[in-house]
């Protein structure tokens, strides 16, 4: 595995200097654009400069990091220091859903939204304690590599690839969708074209240099996204509370929100049925679903191949552990700020929009209303005239905005904060660049995970084990392109519901991978038959629950004893199952269309289908345990192998030829 080349050794030693210069250069660029704005350069031009300059920088890094060496392509030569790998993982991890969507979710759901914040951070404990360092010691290029070695060959490898593919493809489609939304909003091009423009940016970074290129671009992208996320709320916090630490000062905003909620109820501006108190739990998710989401997201984290493979790139097992800690630290910086965004925006909406005369609305809102992202009285809030006309049609409307009149798209919260705070446009452009960096970096990592599994596991290990290096890398690149175009084509059809799609990816990975990974490392007695049976059973049950509740809910009710999910506050069913089942219109609707009232509203034990991993994972563990005990104990060599990966000392167990 000796791949040290003289030039790259200098590069590793000077990482601090290089990325320091880069960060300084980026800040300078933002200041420069700020000056351009002051001298009257139009906003549209600033938006273009932001997007193209940042994508160009990522592409240059990608091209400079091109490589023709297998270990560089798959695991960046295993030379990425812990702290930088942590930053790259942070960017890999935080997607458009985290950057743009999470604060909006917290705005709408209040406390219940924190299930996602907890679920998307706590899983790193499992990564470090149970899985990551052991896979690093093993020395795989991909997660299915481990499955194949530990569980007797290509059948286990193939199931591993199947799990990886279904989880990562669902996830990457959501990312490309997010890229399209941001690019279309800030560049003013149509969504379908924007999807493919974003894709070009993604491919430039990952095509030529594989893991090596993706690593060094992701670090650059992390710096952009964290600066972009923190800048607006730090300014807002300083302005309103005199302290530049929004994570500390938003406590005051929360107190104000709670007081305002009581006031709004008293003034008739909202009803008890509409209002979800910001700090009160279990208004959207029942306790089972709240804790279920936390659990599935956490365990899913420790099963997602694109995250686990990031820890294959560190120089040692020790650094792999440190790297997980750094990863979570860098992720934490964004996640513990998201609730501050939500609180500041909510206070602004509750005090300056709800309860105002229709003619007295603050103008920042209309730019989003024009795009259809904010509605008042059921119509796009494009201007004062538009909302006055819309509210006239509502019977008994008092002429002031009530909470039930106001509908906001969750994406608006982060993107509109600069305007709410009255900041110059350059900050809005910065936020857009940050959102783009978040979506691109995650898509990079996911596409690479898929292409690596197809080229390394399927092509090289299963189809042509004698393929020369050049052809393996060529196959990897071609597959990357094919998968990317496939995901973009799917994203262009706007499959929708990003949060749910991401949730499924986690559950699928959890049900398919987690039991086999854990038992493979922590239980020597786990056998090939047991693991293969467990993976099929767990993954199969998860897929079954997901597909039935979403696409064939009628069959779920008739044959599998599923019933309606319930409202956590009132306990009433979300849909009238008996009535819907009697309606021939819906019975003919197979697979269920989006309009089908039963779609995703039924299940077992009141469990949302995002939680399908919660059914599949325990079954997987049980099957592995029982089937393993029925068979013969694994060979002495296999047990020695498990001993070997438990000890950091010594080289990697698996030695790939270059």
């Amino acid at each position, binding site marked *: 595995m000796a791949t040290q080349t003289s030039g790259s050794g200098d590069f590793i030693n000077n990482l601090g200097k290089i990325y320091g210069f880069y960060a300084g250069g980026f800040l300078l660029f933002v200041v420069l654009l700020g000056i351009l704005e002051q001298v009257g350069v139009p906003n549209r031009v600033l938006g273009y400069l932001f997007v193209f300059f940042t994508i160009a920088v990522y592409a240059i890094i990608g091209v400079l990091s091109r490589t023709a060496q297998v270990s560089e392509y798959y695991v960046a030569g295993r030379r990425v220091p812990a702290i930088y790998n942590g930053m790259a993982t942070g960017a890999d991890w935080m997607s458009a859903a985290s950057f743009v969507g999470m604060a909006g979710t917290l705005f709408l759901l209040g406390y219940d939204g*924190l299930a996602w914040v907890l679920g998307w951070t706590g899983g*790193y404990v499992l990564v470090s304690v149970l899985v990551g360092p052991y896979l690093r010691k093993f020395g795989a290029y991909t997660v299915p590599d481990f499955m194949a070695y530990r569980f007797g060959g290509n059948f286990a490898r193939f199931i591993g690839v199947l799990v990886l593919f279904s989880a990562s493809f669902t996830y990457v489609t959501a990312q490309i969708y997010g890229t399209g939304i941001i690019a279309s909003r800030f560049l003013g091009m149509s969504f379908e074209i924007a999807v493919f423009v974003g894709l070009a940016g993604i491919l430039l970074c990952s095509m030529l240099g594989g893991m090596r290129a993706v690593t060094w671009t992701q670090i650059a992208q992390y710096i952009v996204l964290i600066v972009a996320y923190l800048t607006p709320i730090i300014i807002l916090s300083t302005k309103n509370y005199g302290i530049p630490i929004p994570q500390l000062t938003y406590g*005051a905003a929360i*107190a104000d929100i709670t007081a305002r909620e009581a006031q709004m109820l008293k003034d008739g501006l909202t009803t008890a049925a509409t209002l979800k108190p910001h*700090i009160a739990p279990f208004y959207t998710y029942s306790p089972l679903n709240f804790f279920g989401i*936390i659990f599935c997201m956490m365990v899913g984290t420790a099963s997602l191949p694109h995250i686990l493979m990031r820890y294959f790139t560190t120089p040692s097992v020790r650094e792999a*552990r440190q790297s997980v800690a750094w990863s979570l630290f860098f992720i934490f910086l964004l996640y513990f700020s998201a609730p501050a965004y939500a609180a500041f925006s909510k206070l602004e909406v509750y005090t300056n929009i709800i309860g105002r005369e229709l003619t007295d609305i603050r103008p920042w809102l209309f730019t989003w209303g024009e795009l259809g992202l904010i509605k008042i009285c059921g119509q796009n809030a494009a201007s004062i005239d538009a909302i006055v006309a819309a509210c006239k049609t509502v019977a008994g409307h008092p002429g002031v905005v009530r909470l039930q009149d106001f509908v906001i798209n969750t994406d608006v919260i982060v993107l509109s904060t600069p305007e709410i705070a009255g900041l110059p446009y350059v900050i809005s452009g910065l936020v857009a660049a940050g959102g783009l960096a978040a979506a691109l970096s995650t898509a990079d990592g996911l596409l690479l995970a898929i292409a690596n599994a197809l080229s390394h596991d399927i092509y090289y290990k299963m189809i042509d084990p004698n393929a020369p290096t050049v052809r393996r890398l060529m196959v990897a690149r071609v597959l990357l392109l094919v998968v990317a175009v496939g995901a973009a084509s799917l994203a262009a059809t706007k499959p929708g519901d990003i949060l749910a799609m991401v949730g499924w990816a986690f559950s699928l990975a959890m049900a398919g991978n987690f039991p086999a990974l854990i038992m493979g490392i922590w239980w020597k007695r786990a056998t090939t038959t047991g693991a293969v049976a467990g993976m099929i059973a767990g993954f199969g049950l998860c897929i079954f629950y997901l597909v039935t509740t979403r696409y064939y809910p009628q069959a779920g009710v008739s044959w599998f004893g599923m019933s309606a999910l319930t409202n956590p506050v009132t306990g009433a069913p979300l849909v009238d199952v008996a009535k819907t089942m009697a309606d021939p219109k819906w019975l003919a609707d197979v697979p269920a269309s989006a309009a089908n009232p039963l779609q995703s509203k039924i299940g077992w034990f009141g469990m949302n289908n995002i939680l399908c991993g919660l059914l599949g994972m325990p079954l997987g563990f049980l099957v592995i345990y029982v089937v393993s005990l029925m068979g013969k104990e694994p060979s002495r060599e296999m047990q020695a192998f498990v001993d070997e990966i*438990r*000890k950091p000392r010594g080289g990697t167990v698996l030695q790939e030829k270059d």
Partner: protein
Amino acid sequence: MATSENDQAHWKKTTNLMWIMIGLWIFFGYIIHMFVNVLNKIVILGFPLGFYMAAQGSLIAFVVMLFVFAKKQDQIDREFGVAEDD
């Protein structure tokens, strides 16, 4: 079994540390949030404590846990001579 006594002792300590970490993970990930309504009665700097634990407290705990774990596990590896060379 061919496993040496040293390796067994190393693995036993590693497993103990694992269970401690899993215990803390369950506490900060789940148990503390089951008491959200009680904790929300305590308000610090405007933050109801139950809300704060889910928004920041548990996250800080996870980050600290991971740095401590990396250190402790390395100490165990060194104690039994199975750590990598520096």
